[in-house]
């Protein structure tokens, strides 16, 4: 319970910081809406739903990346990450708290983006929504670990996409499959398996990421 209390305190801190600074969520919202508007005009009217849903996943992936780029910005300022490292009994709580906060930001961006997608392109079914939720878990789990790794680098804005996008390819495959495939449950299962494996790996390895 005390571990979860640490996670709760850390996630609440990130949500409070976002409410105060408002520098991540508005950017994610603006980005995902802009990208949908651009795709609306780029995609020929006779294009299939398959193409449109593929572009939705491109939008979700890069919106998540935008949020992850800012994930440890508050910790970089005034070296607050050092304070957290010294104060938390289990450093994986920092990862879990941060991943939860990023998940909330991404889910809020999608709450706007998915209806907008339905308005511009085509209806969204249960398979797509399940795929988005499962993909969000994986994106946040892996992305938060990689964002913490990249944040120690001077070229963090360049490094994060380079290490994140290859690892996110299976999520896109699973997400697109859950949205448009003939066996969405199989792809949802694949996403759930990815989430479980990578969340476990990220949770177990976060301590080493923070070590110098």
């Amino acid at each position, binding site marked *: 319970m005390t571990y979860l209390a640490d996670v709760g*305190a850390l996630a609440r801190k990130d949500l409070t910081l976002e409410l105060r600074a408002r520098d991540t969520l508005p950017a994610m919202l603006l980005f995902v809406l802009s990208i949908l508007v651009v795709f609306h005009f780029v995609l020929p009217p006779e294009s299939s739903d398959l193409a449109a849903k593929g572009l939705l996943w491109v939008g979700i992936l890069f919106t998540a990346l935008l949020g992850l780029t800012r994930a440890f910005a508050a910790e970089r300022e005034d070296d607050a990450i*050092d304070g957290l490292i*010294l*104060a938390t009994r289990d450093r994986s709580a920092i990862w879990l708290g941060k991943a939860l906060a990023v998940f909330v930001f991404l889910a809020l961006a999608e709450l706007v983006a998915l209806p907008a997608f339905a308005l511009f392109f085509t209806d969204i079914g249960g398979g797509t929504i399940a795929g988005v939720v499962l993909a969000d878990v994986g994106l946040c789990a892996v992305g938060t670990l990689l964002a913490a790794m990249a944040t120690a680098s001077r070229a963090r804005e360049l490094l994060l996409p380079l290490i994140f996008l290859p690892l996110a390819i299976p999520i896109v495959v699973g997400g697109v499959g859950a949205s448009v495939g003939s066996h969405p449950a199989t792809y949802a299962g694949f996403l759930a398996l990815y989430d479980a494996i990578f969340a476990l790996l990220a949770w177990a390895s976060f301590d080493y990421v923070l070590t110098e």
Partner: protein
Amino acid sequence: MIRARGLEKRYGDRRILRGVEFDLTRGGLLVVTGPNGSGKTTLLRLCVGLATPTAGELAVEVERTRVGFLAHEPLLYRQLTALENLDLYGRLYRIPERRERIGMLLERFGLWDERHTRAASYSRGMLQRLALCRTLLHEPDLLVLDEPFSSLDDEGAALLDRELAERRELAALVVATHDPDRVLPLATAKLALG
């Protein structure tokens, strides 16, 4: 509490520390002096576990969460108020009577009236006071302070003097400073780097 033998730290080809040796026990205060770039901050980061030695032996017999570290930067969140910052750390350190302890420290360091003000609005001296509150919040067994008197006015410095004298009985202290005369009366050992 801390035992260092032949301690060495390199960043790439650059050697920051070489052959550092000292012992520190509870009730001891080690003053670390040296010019800019002599490795004072690096040594302190090694002591608190935020960096690892390249060579040599460093044994710190204190649990990580029982260390209080005052760094160059305040290790705080500027968009949170003083109260919110200390409450976060109080929760993470699992301080039993968190609110009372936070209130007492804010009162002692003259920040009580500004407790609902965001740290971003604080002056450098107030930030240093708040950082000291964070450092002392959990009554650490090992207190590691990097230039603790910097940015403090006379009143703040006097407060810190009193705090160091009190804490010295209960903890081990490592203080890096350009103004060693201030802490030398309390010191049990001195280490000159560079």
